[in-house]
């Protein structure tokens, strides 16, 4: 079924594009504009050309933040994908248990983001936190405030708690699209469970997995509220991700440098998305 060619269809897309232009395109252009100015108040500003960019690219600061962000995204992907795919594989198809498990993993998705650090820090509260008491009992000295490894462990755990549902739902969605006849054919050929996974399931869910990967990589690059709530970028800036450093500049009213940072940050995110799109198109073809 090939779609019909008709340029009047643009009229149907127009309302959506108009709203997006107002809340997306116009502010983006403003950011781009600010990046070339030194801004004292928004009424008095001075053209500084590419000075902010030169400053950013010239110091190691930006690369360090980029490195930290990429480390976090890598950890997130390495933990959440095997786990999420594993869960999706064992969810029984089309039964009550199946919908119950999907419901369960979706619950953290509806928790407001600034409450997530609250929930987890409660567990680690020295007087009434359950997890803190367990750690105490087994004599494990968990110190997320001053130990960078522990901060990362906590952040990855919290992020996994929050987002594992999305990976499971997307993977499950991909798995349910595989026709039963594929499995029957595999059974007749005497394929093992692992062979079915590697040769039937994995290739079939690759496009959905790419989509999930894109969303997880981008959203983990954007992490702000949770990382800020848990340790505000500490200890010693060990978890000061791109978005946190940007937030800091904005809070300090350094609008020019903040805008320059935003432009680079946006370009980075866009590049990642574009790479994924190229990969996806190859996948569909």
């Amino acid at each position, binding site marked *: 079924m090939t779609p019909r060619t008709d340029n009047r*269809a643009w009229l149907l897309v127009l309302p959506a594009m108009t709203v997006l232009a107002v809340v997306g395109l116009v502010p983006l252009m*403003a950011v781009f504009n600010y990046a070339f100015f030194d801004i004292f108040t928004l009424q008095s500003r001075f053209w500084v050309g590419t000075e902010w960019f030169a400053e950013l690219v010239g110091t190691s600061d930006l690369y360090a933040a980029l490195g930290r962000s990429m480390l976090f995204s890598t950890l997130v992907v390495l933990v959440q994908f095997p786990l999420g795919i594993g869960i999706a594989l064992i969810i029984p198809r089309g039964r009550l248990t199946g919908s119950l498990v999907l419901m369960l993993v979706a619950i953290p998705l*509806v928790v407001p*983001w600034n409450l997530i650090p609250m929930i*987890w820090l409660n567990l680690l509260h020295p007087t009434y936190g359950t997890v803190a008491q367990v750690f105490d009992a087994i004599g494990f000295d968990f110190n997320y405030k001053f130990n960078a490894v522990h901060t990362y462990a906590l952040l990855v755990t919290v992020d996994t708690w929050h987002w594992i549902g999305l990976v499971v739902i997307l993977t499950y*969605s991909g798995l349910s699209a595989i026709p039963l006849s594929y499995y029957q054919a595999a059974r007749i050929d005497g394929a093992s469970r692992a062979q079915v996974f590697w040769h039937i399931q994995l290739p079939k869910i690759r496009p959905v997995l790419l989509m999930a990967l894109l969303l997880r990589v981008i959203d983990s690059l954007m992490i702000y509220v949770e990382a800020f709530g848990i340790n505000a970028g500490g200890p010693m800036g060990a978890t000061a991700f791109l978005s946190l450093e940007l937030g800091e500049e904005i809070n300090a009213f350094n609008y020019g440098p903040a805008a320059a940072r935003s432009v680079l940050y946006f370009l980075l995110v866009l590049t990642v*998305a*574009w790479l994924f799109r190229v990969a996806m198109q190859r996948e569909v073809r």
Partner: protein
Amino acid sequence: MRTLAFALLAVFIIGPLMQAIVLSLTVTLPHPGVTVGDWSLVNYRNIFDNPALVASLHNSLTYVTANVILTLIVALPAAYALSRYRFVGDRHVFLLLLAFRITPPVVLSLPIFLLFARLGLLNSSFGIALVHCLFNIPIAIWILESFISAVPREFDETAFLDGNSLSRFFVVHLLPVIAPGVGVACFFCFIFSWVEVVFARILTSTGGKPITMAIDALFTFQTDIGLVMAMMVLSLVPGVALIWFVRNHIARGFQLRA
């Protein structure tokens, strides 16, 4: 084996919430008529005695509803066009949608604040509803497009032959068929709008605060952690209720199209 895995998963997901629920039912600060440490519903009663908190519940519900309605109104025709027609630039529309979905809120926070100040949309629920369209319209279009594409084209043609106009076809014929898709789209728009904090914070500097910001404001020198947790539990109720309604369709919305 499988049961054990699901049990572990349930503990991991529900466990942290349990602590919050227990705290919400515990008296954590002295209040008249109760002793600290006792089980009580006093925290929930205090929420409804506090006008700021009641207002925040109201604000959150208002902007989320406005956002979902606005998003659906513009996303439905767009999804239909992308599913049924080829037109100049249709492939670019998808890349554009992707770009908007992935724009980090913190990048846009300052210009959006200035723009909305000029438009008089600060401290209003409508302002938040509008800005959340930035990531909800792309999501809604993706989901609806995949549901509309699952409907055979003959379905449209029969309806048009019967003399339906495009708008009548949408409301009377198409909507009932893709109702599960609309449900899933509503669900995802709801959660992304409900949980979002960065825009909600900058756009409500003095008034119109949503639940998330009202909870932040509860942290003072002597925080009533029980009240905070009660508020948190309340903030989960609409989302969990929605999950229940879309539970059977939730996995269908993401069949991929590049």
